[in-house]
């Protein structure tokens, strides 16, 4: 039953993840964190981190990770197949339509409406991840602010905008700073 549930949830994600890259993010968050509670928000953040530093599309990484957590290897396979089935069917249809007509204005129009929407939705997911990083489970107030995380996130953002280092390096450096900080705090106190 849980396998069927996983399959259906990831079918929904696969069928609606238009727009590449992070487009699946808000859908994964909704299905896995909010509706089914397969992941906590901090696990979801960790999953994004792991996806960024390992090969493969975020959605397949997520399907595997969530499937493993909920129902082991079989769960991972079922969730991944669920995610890939709708796109595979749609890509097949698109391939043959394209071969016949040479262009797909209808598809382009759908996309032109979807792309900005996806940006807005990813922004929502981004806010969720920031809240998790800086406030965790706490209510949002100045006293509960994790100043270390907030400062680190802000610095990382500035560095990224200046395009000085890659995404991958940024994440690793932030991880290293986290460990160094953990070692330093007892020394300072």
């Amino acid at each position, binding site marked *: 039953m849980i396998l069927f549930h996983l399959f259906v949830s990831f079918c929904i994600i696969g069928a609606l*993840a*238009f*727009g*590449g*890259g992070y487009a699946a993010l808000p859908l994964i968050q*909704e299905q896995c964190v909010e509706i089914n509670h397969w992941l906590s928000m*901090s696990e979801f953040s*960790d999953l*994004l*981190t*792991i996806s960024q530093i*390992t*090969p*493969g*599309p975020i959605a*397949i*990484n997520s399907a*595997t990770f969530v499937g493993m957590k909920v129902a082991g290897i079989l769960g*991972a*396979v079922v969730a991944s197949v669920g995610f*890939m089935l709708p*796109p*595979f069917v749609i*890509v*097949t249809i*698109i*391939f043959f339509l394209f071969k016949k007509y040479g262009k*797909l204005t209808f598809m382009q*129009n759908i*996309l032109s*409406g*979807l*792309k*900005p*929407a*996806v*940006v*807005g*939705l990813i922004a*929502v997911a*981004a*806010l969720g991840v*920031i809240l*998790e*990083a800086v406030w965790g489970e706490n209510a949002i107030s100045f006293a509960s602010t994790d100043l*270390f*995380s907030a400062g*680190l*996130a802000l610095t*990382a953002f500035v560095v990224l*905008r200046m395009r000085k280092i890659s995404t991958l390096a*940024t*994440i690793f*450096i*932030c*991880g290293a700073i*986290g*460990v160094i*900080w*953990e070692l330093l705090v007892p020394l300072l106190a």
Partner: protein
Amino acid sequence: MALFVHTFTLSALTIGGGYVMIPLMKERFVDKLKWITTNELAELTALGQSSPGAMVVNTAVLMGYRLFGFWGALCALLGTALPPLIILSVVFYFYDSIRGNRFVSAAFRGMRAGISAVIVDTVVSMAAPYLKKDEAPFILIMAGAFAAAWFFDINVAFIIIACGILGVIIGAVQRKRGKRT
């Protein structure tokens, strides 16, 4: 099949998602193997982007169809999808067993700050072209989708379907206006 081996090795070695893999696909399939031309790959990438799901998987599947028909597509699908599936299964075991470790959780605390910066950076980069071009209907869709999900907690799947329909309507209106002027 050779196609399976090629997509498998490419997929296993590319960290950083779709847009990193396309140049590598070009190098392998266009320059080295000469299976398809640069133009064809660009066309397939565009089609892969307009379908839902992972862009890289879609592009590989389309290339499989182009080269060897249905079985080629299936080989490309498996070749692209298996490496992340295997790697993430292994990573999950490690994650689950070392998560409680003080230094691992400290590293994840730092990386959580890092990943939030990465995602915000992506959003800013994605939103910039719309804000620059001053395309009112699309900026409205962007703001509307954000508000619907953040303030009104409306189902994401529903928002996506609604915006797809809006896109078709805007397309039709623009075509009509184009004819008149």
